């Protein structure tokens, strides 16, 4: 028997696939009959050729029919699924709402991630733009700096032809005036190639604007602020830098700058204008700005870092106090990953990693919780559908079809939830953005391919996770067992128990986090910063000449207790200096960087700084201006001074005597540990800040008085006074409020989802034990003992969840707090107990009425059941 006795097997297999709903047997018979007939007449080859041709010719017709049938079946499944969902209305609503809210959270978390990873990627040439960073080694500890000496960029461009453009960016304070509008502004300065290298589309004007030092660029907000809706091109404005007054012409207005751009500016002028601050742009001693390179062939940068030693030499000769080791390059698209110090106050910071990772983790956990709920309720309800499943199987329903049915139901639910989630995300995204000043999440489904792919994947994964377990588990039941009533639905098996415990754990953890972050916010608002921030108003003077007149006018007011002048101000400005101790017997000299505050009269008293050893400055002693220094406790510790008072230290190669030690204070909130710091006395001709200590119950009135006096004395400049407590805590307050609000809603959501899961499983447990409870009651069981019987299992799960959540939550939340703040309120035991108790109360309320109902019901009802 040759293989040609039978028709091609592959062709037959194909035909079989094509008619799953018709009878493929009959069709195959027809084909085979014809095949044998043709083989008899024309031979096997012709017959096989015919067979294959017929298979191919039949393909289109049968495929179309198949597609039609699939759609019809789908319609059927959808109708059944829809009926099921409507029948279990309450659970459908809980499931759909839980899923859609969790999905919406995922969308927002993705947008948040996309925002962060999209930092600076909108520049068309982002791939060929590099920033020059520097490395300094202090105490064998390499530090990355984002700033570079001013002449470095142009020198590199002149030496290395593969560098197309160099753009340096710097900034300075100025007073901006157009007609009667006067405001303090920060002006950015950039090299003329700025618009060739970076992609900032212009609303008005031409990209060559910066080649003319007399022209400036505005962002749209600033343009509106000064010029309203009119086109400001060609308008003349005056800008005062320090004491120099200059006239500029508005040359261009950019389109709105995306929030996830490191480069943000209100006013941009040509780099040459920096000379108004007395900067010599060719001087290697001048630092304080960032340098970008435009390198069309990034491979050329390899090894360049090592060829810059000559520049390092130039720099280190010019600034022996500030020695650097090397320069290196960071590609613009990766800049968002680099640490904050390299941002150099010129570039906007990207999101804190904790702000990207934790929303994503939480959103995924919420989604898992919602899916687990879905699984648990689906299993619970399969109990009611066991007969349907049994009948379907007996009638010849294939397991595949049952799986399809359950998956279809789950998918339908997901599609509904998904539609809702898309709408919810439109609400959530702006709400979440509004919590964070630096965030601007745009929901744009139409114009965002990665988002669409992400959403589709999310839908699919959600549907599969939510539907898989019930689909595969329930469809595996044997129909005989089901119909004989032998199939016990393993409702509370280890798997469902684990799912519920997981849900409860997450819920307790999130509640715990909410409590901890609320506590922390309160702690950080009231924490002692080491000085008295509550009673201080501060006014930047702009010009030290104004100090005396202004002070003399202020001291008349009885609400003002003290007035101080200074060159530095806590939370506002200080100077980085290198300090060194003298080598003494048995001890080497210690060298390191410290923060130096130059203060004037009354500053210690006004700010409430506390002297712990020695004395404060004495204005009557001339030597205090030249030789004296006060150090903080951290300085004493890090520089190994056990008896600091009377010791000599070197600051920038000048010798000073330590006259006093002051208590450590936090410069700007509790983000970072206290640096070693020192105070030096400075003369009134350098007072840039005036601080006033006022009665704390008269802060607002006194601020108004300060403003009036300022406007009377210095009418040409705006009043910029501020509240010390708001200034130093503003950022921490924003962050704390944001975290607290976010966690409040997440905790609410997690609690609702967990409670819904508990409720579903409770109904299942009670339904399964209806008869048992009835018998127990007939035999005299009390309401209490029945309640305990049912609750025992759930209480065990809740206890496990609480312990897990407390232990896990303690470490995770502490890690999160540590990653944001150097000093925080900690986690503590009490919040763990509170979160547990809270969850217990919620759980008891959820299951309580169900248990009560069954425990107080008439046992006859239960025994008559079914």
């Amino acid at each position, binding site marked *: 028997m040759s293989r040609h006795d*039978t028709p091609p097997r592959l062709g037959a297999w194909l035909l079989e696939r094509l008619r799953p709903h*018709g009878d493929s047997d*009959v069709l195959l*018979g*027809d084909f085979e*009959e014809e095949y044998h007939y043709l083989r008899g007449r024309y031979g096997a080859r012709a017959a096989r050729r015919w067979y294959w041709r017929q298979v191919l010719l*039949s393909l289109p*017709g*049968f495929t179309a029919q198949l597609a039609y049938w699939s759609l019809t079946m789908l319609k059927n499944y959808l109708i059944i699924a829809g009926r099921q969902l409507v029948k279990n209305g309450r659970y459908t609503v809980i499931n759909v709402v839980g899923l859609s809210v969790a999905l919406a959270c995922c969308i927002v978390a993705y947008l948040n991630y996309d925002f962060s990873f999209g930092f600076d990627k909108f520049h068309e040439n982002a791939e060929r733009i590099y920033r020059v960073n520097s490395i300094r080694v202090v105490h064998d500890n390499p530090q990355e700096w984002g700033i570079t000496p001013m002449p470095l960029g142009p020198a590199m461009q002149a030496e290395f032809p593969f560098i197309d453009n160099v753009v340096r960016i710097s900034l300075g304070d100025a007073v901006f005036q157009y007609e009667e509008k006067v405001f303090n502004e920060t002006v950015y300065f950039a090299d003329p190639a700025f618009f060739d290298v970076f992609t900032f589309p212009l609303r008005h004007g031409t990209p060559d604007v910066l080649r003319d030092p007399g022209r400036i660029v505005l962002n749209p907000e600033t343009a509106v602020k000064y010029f309203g809706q009119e086109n400001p091109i060609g308008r003349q404005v005056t800008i005062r830098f320090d004491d120099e007054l200059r006239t500029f012409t508005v040359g261009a207005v950019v389109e709105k700058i995306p929030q996830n751009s490191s480069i943000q500016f209100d006013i941009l002028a040509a780099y040459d204008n920096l000379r108004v601050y007395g900067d010599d742009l060719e001087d290697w001693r001048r630092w304080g700005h960032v340098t970008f390179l435009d390198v069309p062939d990034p491979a050329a940068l390899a090894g360049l870092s090592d060829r810059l030693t000559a520049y390092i030499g130039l720099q280190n000769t010019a600034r022996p106090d500030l020695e650097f080791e090397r320069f290196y390059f960071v590609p613009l698209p990766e800049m968002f990953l680099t640490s904050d110090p390299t941002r150099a106050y010129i570039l906007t910071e990207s999101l804190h990693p904790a702000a990207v990772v934790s929303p994503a983790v939480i959103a995924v956990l919420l989604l898992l919780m919602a899916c687990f709920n879905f699984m648990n309720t689906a299993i619970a309800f399969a109990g009611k559908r066991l007969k349907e499943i049994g009948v379907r199987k007996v009638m010849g329903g294939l397991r595949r079809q049952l799986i399809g049915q359950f998956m279809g139901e789950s998918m339908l639910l997901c599609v509904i939830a998904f539609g809702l989630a898309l709408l919810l995300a439109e609400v959530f995204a702006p709400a979440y953005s509004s919590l964070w000043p630096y965030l601007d999440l745009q929901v744009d489904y139409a114009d965002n391919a990665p988002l669409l792919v992400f959403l589709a994947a999310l839908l699919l994964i959600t549907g599969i996770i939510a539907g898989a377990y019930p689909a595969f588990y329930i469809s595996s039941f044997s129909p005989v067992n089901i119909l004989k009533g032998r199939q016990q639905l393993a409702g509370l098996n280890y798997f469902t128990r684990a799912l519920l415990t997981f849900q409860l754990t997450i819920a307790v953890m999130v509640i715990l986090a909410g409590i901890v972050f609320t506590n922390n916010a309160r702690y950080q608002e009231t924490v002692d910063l080491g000085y008295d921030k509550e009673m201080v108003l501060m006014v930047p003077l702009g010009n030290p000449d104004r100090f005396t007149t202004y002070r003399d006018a202020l001291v008349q007011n009885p609400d003002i207790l003290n007035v101080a002048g200074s060159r530095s101000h806590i939370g506002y400005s200080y100077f980085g200096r290198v300090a060194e101790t003298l080598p003494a017997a048995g001890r080497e000299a210690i060298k390191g960087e410290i923060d130096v505050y130059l203060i004037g009269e009354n500053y210690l008293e006004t700010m409430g700084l506390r002297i712990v050893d020695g004395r404060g400055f004495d204005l009557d002693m001339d030597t205090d201006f030249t030789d004296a220094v006060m150090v903080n406790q951290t300085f004493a510790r890090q520089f190994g001074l056990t008896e600091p008072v009377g010791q000599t230290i070197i600051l920038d190669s000048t010798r000073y005597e330590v006259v006093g030690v002051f208590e450590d204070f936090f410069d700007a909130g509790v983000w970072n540990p206290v640096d070693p710091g020192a105070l030096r006395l400075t003369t009134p001709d350098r007072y840039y800040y005036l601080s006033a200590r006022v009665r704390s119950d008269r802060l607002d009135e006194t601020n108004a008085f300060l403003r009036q006096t300022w406007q009377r004395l210095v009418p040409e400049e705006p009043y910029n006074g501020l509240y010390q407590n708001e200034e130093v805590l503003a950022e921490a307050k924003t962050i704390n409020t944001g975290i607290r609000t976010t966690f409040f809603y997440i905790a609410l959501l997690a609690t609702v989802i967990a409670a819904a899961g508990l409720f579903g499983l409770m109904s299942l447990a009670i339904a399964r034990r209806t008869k048992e409870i009835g018998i127990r009651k007939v035999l005299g069981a009390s309401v209490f003992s029945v309640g305990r019987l049912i609750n025992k299992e759930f209480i065990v799960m809740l206890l496990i969840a609480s312990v897990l959540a407390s232990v896990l939550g303690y470490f995770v939340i502490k890690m999160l707090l540590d990653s944001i703040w150097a000093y925080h309120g900690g986690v503590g035991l009490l919040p763990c107990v509170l979160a547990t108790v809270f969850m217990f109360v919620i759980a008891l309320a959820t299951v309580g009425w169900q248990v009560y109902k069954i425990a107080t019901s008439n046992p006859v009802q239960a025994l008559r059941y079914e």
Partner: protein
Amino acid sequence: MTLLRRTEELILLAVLQLGENAYGVTIRRHLMEITGEHFSFASVYVPLDRLTERGYVTATDGPPTKERGGRRRRFYRVTPGGVAALAEMERVRSALRQGVPKLAFG
């Protein structure tokens, strides 16, 4: 009642003509002989499925046969409903022909 499509009408007529011996292979051969056109199995079975669904034909399976690899034949018979549908086609056609010059049919 929707009108029959062309292939449906042809198949119904072929099934009527073949009488007791109307199944896939014979129907297809018969159609090809008379029309001189090629018919794939799909173009026979897809309309047959539709006719069955609408109740114009009924199908009965015969005994398994050796030349078909042990598979059954499915014989089709036209129901009174199918006959009525054919009659309806005739009526429509003759009504449309009223007054159309004979020449048009050559």
